[in-house]
């Protein structure tokens, strides 16, 4: 996947002008947030249910190495084969080899965000292996060669006319239609043929259960179930933070995930695999290969505060409620993850220097934090990244701040710590600042502060400061 996180501003302004994205963003996120809120009402005590999710994920992270070992042991005992890979490149190489060894002409794929991170589809294509994304939204995004706009509805912003064109060109559709149901049916027919004859299926993993060695997938369409039922070989890819301690924990996480994600009590299909098919079963995989990917997670894990980000279960509640995401949509974030979750994850996965605008494009309103079912403090993380960036922490790939900015803030810190100096400074700066004032408001300013004024105004500095006036008051009375 081409990483475009450094083009945040350009992409944001580009997509803010896109009529289809605008049309979707005007209503979609509000509808999705509303559905989520309604679904949560089915819990007798919503904060209690959400908080329990946070505790499960916090415990999972505290016990991560132990739980992974337990998961591996139990999954292996169930008959699954567990492989470990360091990063996206190793992941793609491993999967290419697995496919080549088995000689499958193509693979069907269920949605997997970690293979989105690694750009698996591109590498499969390079090696002459056809891969079909089978989630309708992912299928459209793959045909259009676009990143996900929304983690749950990857192509939800794409107008039906554009879907029609691409289906006519690449998915064997005969007659053009702009009926979403007919378009969906065309994709059904095209992909059904692929499911029917598939030899290898690739999926992600939503939850891995340490206690039982089980992997769990959550979906609505049935494409993942097909991918895990029809072919002889199943490859399921999980980033290593997906594990939870027990099956009971997994059940609670499923309740939270589905409600927070799509506003459902449970998605249409939740499938749990404990090993390959047994003797006598006519379908299901003969071999189940689980690939555990580090993909930068062990590095994130070293920092106790950053580790909090690994609790994320990808429900996307934070996207739908975020005033920034609701305005710019998902493409501007330039990587697999968009919205607040992307602003939390992408800087850790790609480095602070590659994601400068991501953790700054925020109002710090905390809406994301208020809906998060695993207790991630997004605004706190954004401020943390900013501080790490300014400190120049090499572990975070911090980018040195401009010398001007540094000097300004050193001077600022000196001044605000000394009242006499500050008061003097304000007095002296007043004529310069107020030079740009119109009707008592400074709307723009030339020079190094011009950027700040692009989206903000400052009241003109008063002729007398409060202190001056107070002194005068006292004098007059006295």
């Amino acid at each position, binding site marked *: 996947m081409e990483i475009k996180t450094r083009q945040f501003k350009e992409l944001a302004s580009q997509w803010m002008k896109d009529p289809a994205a605008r049309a979707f963003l005007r209503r979609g996120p509000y509808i999705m947030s509303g559905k989520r809120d309604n679904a949560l009402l089915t*819990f007798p005590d919503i904060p209690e249910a959400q908080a329990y999710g946070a505790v499960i994920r916090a*415990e999972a992270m505290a016990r991560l*190495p132990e739980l992974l070992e337990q998961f591996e042991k139990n999954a292996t005992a169930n008959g699954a084969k567990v492989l470990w890979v360091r990063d996206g490149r190793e992941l793609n190489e491993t999967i290419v080899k697995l496919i080549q060894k088995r000689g499958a002409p193509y693979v069907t794929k269920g949605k997997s965000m970690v293979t989105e991170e690694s750009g698996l589809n591109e590498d499969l294509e390079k090696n002459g292996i056809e891969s079909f994304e089978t*989630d309708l939204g992912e299928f459209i995004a793959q045909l259009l060669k676009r990143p996900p706009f929304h983690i749950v509805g990857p192509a939800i912003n794409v107008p039906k006319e554009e879907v029609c064109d691409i289906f006519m060109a690449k998915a064997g559709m005969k007659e053009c239609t702009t009926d979403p149901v007919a378009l969906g049916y065309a994709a059904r027919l095209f992909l059904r043929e692929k499911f029917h004859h598939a030899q290898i299926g690739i999926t992600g993993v939503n939850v891995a259960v340490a206690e039982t060695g089980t992997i769990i997938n959550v979906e609505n369409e049935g494409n993942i179930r097909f991918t895990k039922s029809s072919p002889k070989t199943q490859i399921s890819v999980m980033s290593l933070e997906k594990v939870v301690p027990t099956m009971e924990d997994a059940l609670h996480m499923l309740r939270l995930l589905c409600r927070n994600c799509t506003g459902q009590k449970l998605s*249409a*299909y939740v499938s749990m695999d404990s090993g390959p098919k047994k003797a006598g079963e006519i379908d299901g995989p003969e071999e189940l290969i689980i690939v555990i990917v580090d993909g930068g997670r062990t590095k994130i894990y070293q920092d106790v505060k950053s580790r909090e980000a690994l609790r994320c279960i990808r429900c996307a509640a934070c996207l739908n409620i975020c005033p920034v995401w609701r305005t710019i949509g998902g493409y501007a974030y330039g990587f697999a993850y968009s919205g607040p979750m992307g602003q939390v994850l992408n800087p850790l996965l790609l480095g602070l220097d590659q994601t400068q605008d991501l953790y700054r494009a925020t109002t710090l309103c905390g809406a994301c934090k208020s809906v998060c079912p695993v207790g991630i403090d997004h605004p706190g993380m954004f401020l943390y990244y900013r501080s790490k960036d300014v400190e120049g922490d090499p572990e975070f790939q911090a980018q040195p701040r401009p010398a001007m900015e540094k000097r300004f803030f050193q001077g600022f810190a000196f001044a605000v710590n000394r009242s006499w100096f500050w008061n003097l400074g304000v007095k002296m700066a007043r004529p310069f600042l107020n030079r740009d004032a119109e009707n008592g408001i400074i709307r723009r300013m030339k020079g190094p502060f011009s950027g700040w004024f692009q989206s903000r105004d400052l009241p003109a500095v008063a002729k007398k400061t409060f202190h001056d006036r107070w002194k005068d008051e006292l004098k007059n009375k006295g």
Partner: protein
Amino acid sequence: MERSVRDEILARLKAAPKVPIPPRPPKPKLHEHSLTGEAVIEKFTKTLMEETGIVHRVGNREEVLKKLLEIAYEERLKKVMVSDDEVLAPLNLKAWGERNDIQVMTPKDFPDRNSFRDAVFDQADAGITGADFAFAESGSLGLAFHPDQARLVSLAPILHIAVVPVDRVLAYYEQGIPKIFQEKGKYPSQFVFITGPSMTGDIEGVLFKGMHGPRKVIVILVG
């Protein structure tokens, strides 16, 4: 010997700073915790119907066959794929099919995966299965897969009909799932929750049923 990737990853995780495991509060309450008896069945029916599932209730085996025939006429079923699970086996659906001129196939009629796939993808007008559980809390069916319960029967045909004895209708997941994962080495290769028909909203958020799996799910409760 070179250290394996596995050991390297685990070593890195183990070397990281440790934090205390947060204490567990009591398990969150669910409205379904207090449901019993007929209320469980009512709740299941209501919840599944919200997901556009269709629920019928009949008294005994004879009535199941009668109801299946009604559905077969209504849906114009010519060929159906039927599981051999413990709910359906006693119904002898092959004989029912012969009596009513409906071709009844079971996965065991096929020698291998490919021939079974051809039939279940291209020929079956419906898939009929039993179910291990039905859960009121989300209107979900629970199916464990094994040689008598093939995966594609409830997935590939456009219509899924499930026959569920009422004593298998439970209020919430924890009443059933621990039974599935009771004994190590005996877990089903796959367990699935099915909540209504296959669906999507991926094109402009327009919701519709029957994306890849069944467009319609009919549950016949028995007892």
